[in-house]
Each structure stands twice: as C-alpha cells, then as structure tokens.
C-alpha cells in the first residue's frame, strides 16, 4: 500500500495525525478499532489514494464524540443505578441485610472449601519444580502394604536408576538435647547429604550438607530449622560453628534453614543431621527403617520411572531373594503423598458446598423476582419517562450485582473466620498427619475465586429478575403479581432445592453414622483411662540391652506404684499410633524362599496384656522368668496362629521371624487392632523386652481416673531414674483414636456437611414458605369463593398444600437417587454403612417432611382464615 507520490505520502500522514487526535475522544477500549475503521475509510481510494473531505472529517469527530457521550452516559447511569440501589437499601435495610447475610454464608462456605481444594490440589509444592518430586515405597506381598527401605536398597536404587536425577533418604528419630544440665526431646531428621539439594533448598546461613558428611569418620554436624534457631538459639547470627549436644554427642551447627522451608512429611523437625549409617544399618538388607524421595530426570515421567523401578525390584529379588523376594518398588508423586487419601472427601465437600451455593442463589433470585414485581409501579413510571427495556434491565442487574459483590466480600471475611475456626479444632497430631491443613488460608488466589464466584453467580442469577422486566408482554407496566412468578418455574426451583437438601442431609447422616460406628469399634483392648507416652533412650548409656531392660523394669514398677495407677507396661510401639514394625513370619517347615506371614512385631514387658485388657486365649503370657539366658519365647495372636498352624495348637511350636530368629510359642492372645481403628486386626507377634531389648520405648499406663492428671507424676519417675531423659507424645488412648486420620476423614467432612445441610434445609423451608404464601395470596379470591359456598377448612388445606407436597415428593425422590449416587463417591470413607442406608434415607425424609410442614403452617393458616367477604371485596 505504498503511496505513489510524496504528496500522497504527506496527505496520508496528515490524515492519520488528525484521526489520531480525534480518536482521543473515543474510550480507550474502543479506540484502536475506531481508528482502524476510519483510517481504512479515508485511505480507501485504492492504490494509495485518499477519500478525504472536510465534511467526512467532521463526521469522524461527531462519531467519536457520540461514542464518548454514550459510554459516559452508560457510566453515569450505572453510578446513578448504584446510588438509587443504596438509597432503597437505606429505606429498607432488612432486605439488603438478609440477602447479604445469606450470600455471605453461601459464598463464604464455598470460598473456604475452595481454600481446602487449593491447599490439597492446586497450590504448588513448596520446592523447586515440586511436580518432579516423588516418594518411594516398598510394596510387599499382595501389593497393598507400603513399607520403608533398608540402606543397601537405597544405595542400589540410586545407583541403578536412569529415570531419577537423584534420590535422597530421610529418617526421623527423636534425640535428647542437653543444655546446661537440662534435657528435652528434639525432633531430628537424618538425611542423606544431597537431601536439601534435591529439594532445591539452600540454608539461609552457613552451608548445606555435602558429600562426605555421611561417613562414620566425618565430623558430626547439624543444620537447624529456622523455628528452632529463633526460639531456642536466640536467632543468633553467629550460631554457625556453635555446638549442640544431642544424645550426649556434640554436633557442630553448620547451617540454618530458611524461614519458609517446611518438609511436609516432617513438619515437627527441628534439627537436621547427616544420615550416617551404622555398620548394621549399612549391611542389613532386611532392616527397613528409612524413607526415600527422588527427583525425576529431565524428560522422564513417573510412569516411565515406575516401569524402571519394577525392573530394578525384579533384579534385586533375584540377587537377594531372602531380603527382597516378594517386594516391589512403588512411586507416588510427592503431592499425592502429602495430600494422601483426602481427594474423595475434599471433592465431595466441594461438590456439596457448590450445590448449597446454587440453591442459595436460586432462592435469592426468587426473592429478588418478587421484589422486582413489588416495584412494578415504579418501573412502569421509569418506562413511561423514556427508559428503554435495556436500561431497566441494567437498573435491576446493577442492584443484584452490587448485592452479590458485597455478599462476596462479606463471604471472604466469613471464609477467613471459618478456616481459622476449623483449623483450631484440628488436634495437633492430626495436623502432623495431614500437613496441608497447616496451609489453609485465604490467599490471593482464594480471594480472587470468591469474588469471581460472586460476580458469576450475580450475573447468572441476576438475569432471572432482570429478564422478567425485559420480557413481560406489554412492557414492564404490565407486570402483575399473577404472572410475575411463573408457578411452574417456582415449583421446579423448590423441587430442585429439596433434591439438593436431601442429597446433603443423607450424605451427612451417612458420615455421622460412620463416625458413630467407628466410635463403637472395639479394638480388642480397653481404651478408657489409658495413658500412652514415648521415651527416647538416647545416648551411649543405653547401648547395652541390659541397661534398657533394667530401665524398663524399674520404670514400670515405679509408675505402677503411683496413686491412681492400676498398672503400667512398656511396649516399643504404641498401638494405633501409626508407628509399627513388621516382620515376615514362617514356621521351620515352610520353604525358606516361600511366602511369609506379614506380622506386626511388639516388644513388651510381661504386664502388657493385663494393662491393655487383652484376653489370653490359651497358654501363658510372657513372664519375668523369660530372660536373656532362657530360650526365646513369643506370644502370638489368633490370626497368626490360624495362618501358621490352622486348627492345630500352636503351643510349644516354633516360629521363625525375619528368616533368622526362632521363637517358641507359649501363648495365644485375642486379636487387637494396632494399625488403624477402621481396618481389621492383623497378625501380631509379642516378644519379651528382656530377650529383645529395644531403644524405642513406649509406656502404657492404666489409671483409675483421667490419665491426664498423672502426666507430671509419670515424668518425675522417668527423670528420677535418668535426669537426661524426657517423655513425649503423651496422649490418652481415647485422644489418640479421636485424632487419628481414620476418625478425622469422617468427622471433619461430617461437621462441614452438617453445616451445609442445615443451611440447605433452611433455604428449602424459606423457599417452600415463599411458594405457598404466594399461592395463597394469588388465590385469595378463589379461596374466598370456595369458603363462601361452604368449603371446609380441611378441603382448603388439602387444596393449598397438595401441589406443594407433590413438589416436595418429587424433590425427595430425585434427591434420594442423587444421595445414593453421591454416597458411592464417599464409599472409601464410609464405615459400617452402605451407600443406600435405609436409616439415613428415612431420617432424611422425616426431616424434610417436618420442614415442609412447618413452612406451610403460616400460609395455610392464612388461607383457612380467609374472610370470603373481604377476599371478594378486595379483588
């Protein structure tokens, strides 16, 4: 499009400059398009020619000015609409307050649950390229159990893998930190030297761990967490080079981690140290105690990596059958590892809260529709004074959007409060099990979501009353109460609200029943008045087994003698704490490379069964006469006895643990749940602490009353034996069960859903009331005539409520079907109840019918009391 002559070029330039100046009148959003159109017109002569005239230039000015004035007028009119809406609310504050309050609840709940979705599914992991991180597990036998790794396996996996850019290990023992003769337990994590580098984390002070820090001959060093550095070390900037005494050994502080660093699976970690395997740890393939994480190599995905791990597992099983036969390798994306099995529960709760929001908005749209109808005279006057339908629609829509935006902002505040309240109710132990709960917050993304939902819902549901103004035949002035709210539409709305309420109520009742069923579960031992705690027998003083045995004996005797205590026993792992040791068990007759029974191993003192209230089925328990010098004995549970010996008596029979340790069975106890309360009991083996001392020591104490009052007394007995020791993870068994993931995955969704269900039921009641009240108002004349000719009250009641109850029945049927379908989504967290539980459905139906009946009381009474004379005169 090159102009032929210089003159033409100059002309183009002049016109373009003139148009550019004129275009300043056009609002910025429209300016580019306007300029393009007019430029094309003026230069539309072809071959670079111009079609210019002063008249047309004037036309361009007029066009630009007109566009500007229309835009300005729209903006001014929108501001006027807003002012008028605010003025109406000042005159009738109750309507606006009610609407904003309802919106705040509905939008706020929605926003709060989105924060949960954000924390579990959307927010990136707090590491460099977090989506490349994976967590390793070893699969055993049937592929359902995931367990830890041995150090040799960790080394092999790292050496053989090509799909991993690197693998790192971690293990978290507690240690005793001694300072100025005072001792306390610190949570430490042993990590391979490349652990932080793999995660992409650098200390904010000092240095990272490096190759060589994990050698037995290396200097003992630690990196401290920011929280520990701030609270325990005075945030001393010169801390590097200082010393911490852990388990009696001095460690030099070489680094301090950044404030925002948290490793989700070790949230309590205070001190980090290099994982220096002992000779036993470095060589025992069957000793599985550590965790492994990895980062995918560039270009590799988790599916490819899993395929490679399957091959590596097969190779290792062939090379070391005793330790690795029957074991696989499983990779789980780090996000899934952190979030765990919460997906179904979170999705269910989000779906529920979305449904509640929809019926909230539908209810409000109904309310606003009635309000618009009530303003029909005012709207008719506006129309008569020249307002177009579009302007009237805008007028209505502005008020609705304003309500939704204010409701959305109030909802964001409510969401923030609700999240704080929910998080404060979650026990600390549960927070550690579910680390993402600590990240719940109303972040910028969550606020943006809340306001966007407010605008979208306002726009969509605001169209209902707005379009009523636009589409009324004969214009807005012709809107009458009779045609203002289409009966079919209103009834459909109520039926859908009933269906949603039924779905929510039924789901809630199923979760509540699951929780109640769980509370009734008998784990096989007495859970009442049972204190549990752990003690870390750290330091070289407990290197000898005899010292551990002596400690356990003295401690249990001292504690059992305390007033208020009826018994005390030591056990290496507290049942239902989620902390277990497993071993493979077989009989001598079984082939050495054959299947073994995966068994939970417990190291106990003889009083353990009595203190726990466990039933001895046959034979005897462990005794004080079972010592390190006598033959190794064991008590097994019924499940293990059946698995190994069938119906035959297991007494005086031999079992082999871990392929190496032979024990004689002296007794059988009843099965107890030790893993989680919602899973069946599993095979268990009990061995004597005197014969197999363990540094991992827990204490179970049966008390007459509340065990909490005796915590300090028990602590004093521990420190009386060894001042360098302290107790930790103190909890009653009941508290431990209530705070367990098995309970929380039911109780928290149940609590949330019950709130939503109550809200939804309230909305159903309001909706039904509105429909029936409107029906009665619209049919006042008809009812008056019927009463005048002798219709009985019962007949009037039947007539008024028949249609409504039909709607409720329809909603209940649809809702019941939806409830059963949605319960199938919740199946993984239901316990002891089926998806179509008749009791839950019956209770739901009863609640809805009662609410429907209550909603009809006032309008029905009004209908029954219609004075025929008044009704006919008024109409």
């Amino acid at each position, binding site marked *: *499009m090159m102009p032929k002559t210089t003159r033409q070029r100059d002309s183009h330039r002049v016109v373009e400059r003139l148009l550019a100046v004129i275009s300043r009148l056009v609002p910025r959003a429209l300016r580019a398009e306007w300029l*393009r*159109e007019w430029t*094309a*017109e003026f230069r539309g002569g*072809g071959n670079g020619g111009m079609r210019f005239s002063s*008249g*047309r230039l004037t036309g361009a000015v*007029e066009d630009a000015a*007109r566009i500007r004035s229309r835009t300005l007028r729209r903006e001014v009119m929108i501001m006027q609409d807003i002012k008028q809406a605010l003025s109406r609310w000042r005159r009738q504050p109750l309507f606006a307050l009610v609407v904003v309050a309802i919106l705040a609840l509905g939008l706020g709940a929605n926003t709060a649950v989105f924060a949960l979705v954000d924390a579990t599914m959307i927010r990136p992991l707090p590491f460099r390229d977090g989506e490349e991180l994976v967590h390793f597990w070893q699969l055993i036998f049937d592929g359902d159990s995931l367990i830890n790794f041995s150090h040799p396996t960790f080394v092999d996996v790292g050496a053989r893998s090509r799909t991993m850019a690197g693998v790192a290990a971690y293990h978290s023992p507690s240690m005793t930190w001694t300072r100025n003769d005072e001792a306390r337990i610190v949570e430490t994590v042993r990590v391979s030297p490349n652990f932080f580098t793999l995660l992409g984390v650098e200390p904010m002070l000092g240095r990272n761990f490096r190759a060589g820090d994990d050698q037995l001959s290396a200097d003992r060093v630690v990196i401290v967490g920011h929280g520990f550095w701030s609270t325990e070390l005075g945030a001393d900037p010169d801390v590097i080079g200082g010393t911490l005494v852990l388990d009696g050994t001095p460690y030099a502080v070489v680094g301090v981690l950044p404030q925002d660093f948290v490793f989700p699976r070790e949230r309590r970690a205070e001190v980090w140290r290099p994982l220096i395997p002992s000779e036993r740890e470095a060589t025992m393939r069957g000793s599985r105690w550590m965790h492994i994480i990895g980062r995918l190599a560039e270009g590799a995905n988790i599916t490819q990596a899993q395929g490679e791990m399957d091959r590596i597992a097969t190779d290792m099983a062939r090379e070391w059958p005793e330790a690795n036969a029957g074991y696989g390798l499983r990779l789980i994306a780090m996000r899934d590892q952190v979030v765990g099995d919460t997906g179904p529960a979170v999705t269910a709760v989000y779906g529920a809260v979305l449904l509640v929001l929809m019926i909230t908005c539908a209810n409000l749209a109904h309310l606003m529709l009635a309000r618009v109808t009530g303003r029909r005279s005012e709207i008719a006057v506006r129309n008569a004074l020249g307002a177009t339908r579009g302007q009237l629609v805008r007028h209505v829509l502005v008020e609705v959007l304003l309500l939704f935006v204010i409701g959305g902002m109030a909802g964001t505040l409510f969401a923030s409060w609700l999240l704080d309240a929910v998080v404060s109710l979650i026990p600390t132990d549960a927070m550690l099990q579910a680390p993402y709960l600590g990240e719940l917050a109303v972040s910028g993304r969550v606020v943006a979501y809340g306001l966007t939902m407010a605008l979208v819902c306002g726009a969509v549901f605001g169209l209902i009353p707005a379009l009523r103004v636009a589409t009324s035949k004969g214009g807005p002035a012709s809107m009458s109460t009779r045609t203002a709210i289409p009966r079919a539409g209103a009834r459909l709305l109520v039926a859908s609200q009933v269906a949603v309420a039924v779905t929510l109520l039924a789901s809630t009742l199923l979760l509540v029943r699951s929780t109640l069923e769980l509370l009734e579960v008998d784990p096989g031992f007495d859970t009442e008045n049972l204190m549990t705690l752990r003690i870390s027998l750290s330091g070289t003083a407990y290197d000898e087994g005899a010292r551990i045995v002596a400690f356990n004996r003295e401690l249990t005797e001292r504690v059992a003698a305390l007033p208020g205590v009826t018994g005390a026993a030591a056990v290496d792992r507290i049942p239902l704490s989620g902390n277990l040791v497993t071993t493979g068990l077989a009989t001598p007759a079984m082939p050495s490379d054959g299947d073994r029974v995966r068994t939970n191993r417990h190291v106990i003192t003889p009083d353990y069964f009595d203190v726990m209230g466990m039933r001895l089925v046959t034979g005897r328990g462990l005794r004080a006469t079972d010592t390190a010098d006598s033959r190794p004995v064991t008590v097994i549970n019924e499940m293990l006895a059946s698995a190994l010996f069938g119906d035959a008596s297991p007494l005086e029979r031999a079992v082999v643990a871990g392929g190496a340790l032979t024990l004689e069975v002296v007794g059988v106890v009843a099965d107890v749940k030790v893993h989680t309360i919602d899973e069946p009991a599993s095979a268990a083996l009990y061995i004597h602490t005197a014969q197999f001392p363990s540094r991992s020591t827990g204490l179970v104490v049966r008390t007459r009353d509340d065990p909490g009052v005796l915590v300090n007394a028990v602590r004093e007995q521990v420190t009386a034996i060894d001042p360098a020791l302290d107790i930790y993870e103190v909890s009653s068994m009941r508290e431990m069960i209530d705070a367990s993931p098995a309970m929380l995955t039911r109780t928290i969704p149940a609590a949330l859903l019950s709130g939503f269900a109550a809200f939804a039921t309230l909305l159903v009641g309001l909706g039904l009331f509105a429909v029936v009240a409107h029906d009665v108002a619209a049919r006042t004349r008809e009812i008056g005539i019927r009463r005048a000719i002798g219709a009985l009250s019962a007949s009037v009641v039947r007539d008024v409520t028949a249609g409504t109850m039909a709607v409720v029945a329809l909603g209940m049927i649809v809702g019941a079907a939806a409830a059963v379908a949605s319960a199938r989504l919740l199946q993984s967290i239901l316990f002891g109840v089926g998806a179509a539980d008749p009791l839950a459905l019956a209770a739901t139906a009863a609640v809805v019918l009662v609410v429907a009946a209550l909603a009809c009381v006032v309008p029905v009474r009004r209908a029954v009391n219609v004075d025929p004379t008044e009704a006919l005169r008024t109409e």
Partner: protein
Amino acid sequence: MKPPIRMTYATALVLEALEQGHAYGFDIIDATGLRSGTVYPLLRRLEEAGLVRSRWERVADARRERRPPRKYYELRPAAAPVLEVARARFPAVAAIELAR
C-alpha cells in the same frame, strides 16, 4: 411490530442501502447522500440493536487493491421485518435505486 430502533427516514435509507449491498461507511454515504455524522452513528445503533453485524475485510483482499482492510456491515436476518416496516413507513425509500 414495533422495531427495536426509532424508525426515521435516515434509518430507513441506511437499511435500504445495506439491503442493496452497500457495505461500508463511505459507500453508504455516497449511495444515500447522508452525512458521515449521520451514517456512522446509525450503523452503531443498528449494530447495538442486533439488526446489523460488522466484520473486517480479509487483509489479502484489501492488499490486492492496495489499501487497508475495511469494516463491512451487513443486515442480520432479524432486520428483515424491520426493513419491511421501514419500507411501509417510507415508501419512497423502497422505490429508490441508490447510487453506485
């Protein structure tokens, strides 16, 4: 039928011009003799009322004629009854064969 836009003579002329295939602003101005200050606002109002739609010319087509692409306007199907109303109200418009 009440048209969605106030039916003036100028509006009827512009509708007729579009119906007869005059598709861009200056062309309609030349065909109808109306001022540009009248034609463009009318085109905007007709577009807002949903009677007319606009589209940009293909760049290749414009380049062939060595000029920038134009914005073309055409009647939507909803304009047919409105055009009938215009012709009924202003019969002279229907009789005009607009300049080319």
